C-alpha cells in the first residue's frame, strides 16, 4: 500500500471511536466467556477459575435436555444447510448460466427478498402455512422452515462466486469434448466450491442460531439449542447457560475462520 495523505487513522477521534465500537461489540461476549469459567453459583461474583459449568452442561440435571436440543440443532442445521446449498447452487446455475431470460431480474429479487423481510413476519407466515395444510408441528416443520429461510443465505456467496467464474472455462470444456454434465461436474462445480462452502457454512450458522422462526414452528417437546437456552433462561440465568453460549460462540468462530481461509486460499489460484 502506498502511503496516503488522507489516512483515516489521522482523523481526530478515530482511536476513541474505535475503542467504543469494539467495546460495544465484544465486551458482552468477553464477559460471558470469562464468567463461563467461574466456579461460583452466581453469574456476577467471580470466585475462581473452574470448568465446573462445562461439566454441568454435560452431566448436570439439565444435561439430557441440552444434549437433545443440541442434537436437534446440529442435525437440523446440517440437513437444512446441505439442502439449501444444493437448491441455491442449482438456482445460481440456472439464473447466471442460462443466459438472458424473461423475469430474470424478478427471480434475483425474489430469491434475495427474504433476507429483508422481518423474521417475525416469516415466522408467522410459516406457522400459518403449516397450520393451514395440517402439518403437525415438530422436528419436520422446524427442518422445512430452516431449509426455506437458509436458501437466500446460501445463495448469496454462491451466486457471487459464480459471477466471478468466466464462462469460457465451460466453453473450453465443451470444446474439449466434455458433455454439459461433465463441464458442470468437472469444471464449474470445482471452481464454485469456495462459494458453495461459504454458502453452506453461512446457512449452517444461520440455522444453528435461529430462534424466532424455530420458536413459532416447533412442536411441544421438541427443542433446539436456542429455544432450550431461552426456556432455561426464563427460570433464571445459571452459569451453565454461559458455558453453552461460549461453546456456541466457539463453533461460530471456527466456522467463520474456515470460511475465511477457504476464500483466501482460493484467491491464489
Amino acid at each position, binding site marked *: 500500500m502506498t502511503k496516503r495523505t488522507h489516512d483515516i487513522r489521522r482523523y481526530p477521534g478515530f482511536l476513541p471511536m474505535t475503542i467504543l465500537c469494539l467495546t460495544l461489540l465484544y465486551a458482552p461476549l468477553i464477559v460471558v466467556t470469562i464468567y463461563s469459567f467461574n466456579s461460583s453459583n452466581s453469574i456476577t461474583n467471580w470466585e475462581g477459575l473452574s470448568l465446573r459449568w462445562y461439566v454441568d452442561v454435560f452431566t448436570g440435571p439439565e444435561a439430557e435436555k441440552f444434549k437433545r436440543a443440541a442434537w436437534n440443532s446440529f442435525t437440523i442445521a446440517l440437513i437444512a444447510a446441505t439442502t439449501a446449498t444444493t437448491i441455491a447452487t442449482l438456482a445460481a446455475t440456472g439464473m447466471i448460466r442460462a443466459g438472458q431470460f424473461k423475469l430474470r431480474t424478478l427471480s434475483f429479487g425474489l430469491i434475495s427478498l427474504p433476507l429483508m423481510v422481518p423474521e417475525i413476519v416469516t415466522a408467522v407466515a410459516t406457522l400459518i402455512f403449516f397450520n393451514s395444510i395440517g402439518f403437525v408441528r415438530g422436528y419436520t416443520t422446524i427442518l422445512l422452515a430452516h431449509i426455506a429461510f437458509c436458501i437466500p443465505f446460501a445463495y448469496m456467496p454462491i451466486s457471487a462466486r459464480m459471477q466471478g467464474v468466466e464462462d469460457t472455462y465451460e466453453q473450453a*470444456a465443451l*470444446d474439449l469434448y466434455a*458433455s454439459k454434465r461433465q463441464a458442470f461436474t468437472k469444471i464449474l462445480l470445482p471452481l464454485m466450491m469456495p462459494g458453495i462452502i461459504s454458502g453452506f457454512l453461512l446457512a449452517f450458522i444461520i440455522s444453528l442460531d435461529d430462534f424466532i422462526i424455530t420458536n413459532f414452528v416447533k412442536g411441544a417437546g421438541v427443542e433446539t439449542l436456542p429455544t432450550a437456552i431461552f426456556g432455561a433462561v426464563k427460570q433464571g440465568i445459571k452459569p451453565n447457560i454461559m458455558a453453552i453460549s461460549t461453546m456456541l460462540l466457539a463453533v461460530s468462530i471456527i466456522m467463520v475462520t474456515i470460511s475465511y481461509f477457504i476464500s483466501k486460499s482460493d484467491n491464489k*489460484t
Partner: protein
Amino acid sequence: MINTTPEKSQIAVDINHVTKRYGTFTALQHMSLSIADNEFFTLLGPSGCGKTTLLRMIAGFEDVTEGEIYLFGDEIENLPPNKRPVNTVFQNYALFPHMSVTDNVAFGLEMLGRSKAEARTRAGEMLELVQLSQFANRKPSQLSGGQQQRVALARALAPQPKVLLLDEPLSALDLKLRQAMRYELKSLQRETGITFIFVTHDQEEALTMSDRIAVMSNGELQQLGAARDIYEAPHNVFVANFIGETNLLDVTVKHITGGRATCDLGGDYALSCDAIDGVSAGAQVHLSVRPERLYLSETATDAEGLEGRVRDNIFIGTDIQTIVALNNGPEIIVRTSNSDRGSSRIFEPGNAVHVNMEAGAARLLVD
C-alpha cells in the same frame, strides 16, 4: 500467386453464405470462404468486424443465423461444440485453474473416452512439443503468460483436432514474447500438419504467419489472399489502410489510355497507374502509394516530377519516415531505410526535395 480457391477435396472448412444476426444487428453478412487443409489461415480485421463471431461459429459457441459450415465435407453448424472435431485456443487461455498442467492437456482425450494412461502419455508428448515437460505438475497460475499460452496450445492440439481455432492468442503477451510465439506457432502448424484458423486484429501478426489472410470489416469479407498479395495489391481503400501504412491520395482521373490511367493530384501533378474496371475519366478515386516505395532526391529522377519541402523526419528504428509537403499539393510520407547502403540521404526539415516513385507503386482504388 497462391491466391487460388482450394480444390474441393482439400477443403478443411467451407463457410457457405453464413450470416449472423443479433436482433437487428448484423455481425456477419453472407460470408463465404474456403479454408484449405494444412493451411495457416488468418481472419484479420478491426474489433467488431465479425472475425471472432465467425471463429466461434466454427467452434460451435454461436448459432448460425443463415448459411452452412462444412468441416471436411460434413455439415457441422447444427452440432454442439463437443461433437465437432475442432479445438480452440482461447484469448485468455481458459486453462482450468484447479487442474495441473498435465490434467489440463489430458482433459480432451479423457473426455473422448481414452484411458487415463493413454491421455497422460499423450499429454506428456504434447508438453514436450511445447517444451514445458518440467512444468507438468504445476498449476496454471504458477506459470508465466507465455507458458500458459503454450499449455493452452498443447491442450487444444492433444486430441488431434482436424482444425485448430486460435482466438487472438498472442494479444495478452508482451511484444518480445509475441514475436517469438509467431515463429513457434508457424512451426507448430508445419510440424503437426493441422489446419490453423487464426483470428487477430494485428496486421503484422497476420502478415508474418499466414498462408492466406481474409481481411474483414463490418461483417463482410474485404479481401482474401496471400499476405504479399494483400499488401501489394489491396482491393479497396479499407484494405490499403488497414494493412501496413499507405499514402492515400484523393485524385481525379483525367484520361485512360492503353490500360493506364492518368490522375490529377492537384498542383499540376499527374500520376499514372494501372487502370481498373469500372473507373472512367472524371471519376473521383484514390491512389494508394506505400511509403517505402517512394524515395527522395535532390533532382527529379522519374517522370511524375513531385516536388516539395520536408516538414519533418520521424525516426522509427529500422526506418526514417519523412513527411513532405508537396508544392500546391497534399502531404506525402516517404519511408527511407535506416542504413548506409544505397542513396538514403536524410533531408533536413525545410529542404526542397523531389519525391520519386518506383514503377507500379501507385495503385488506383475506389471506396
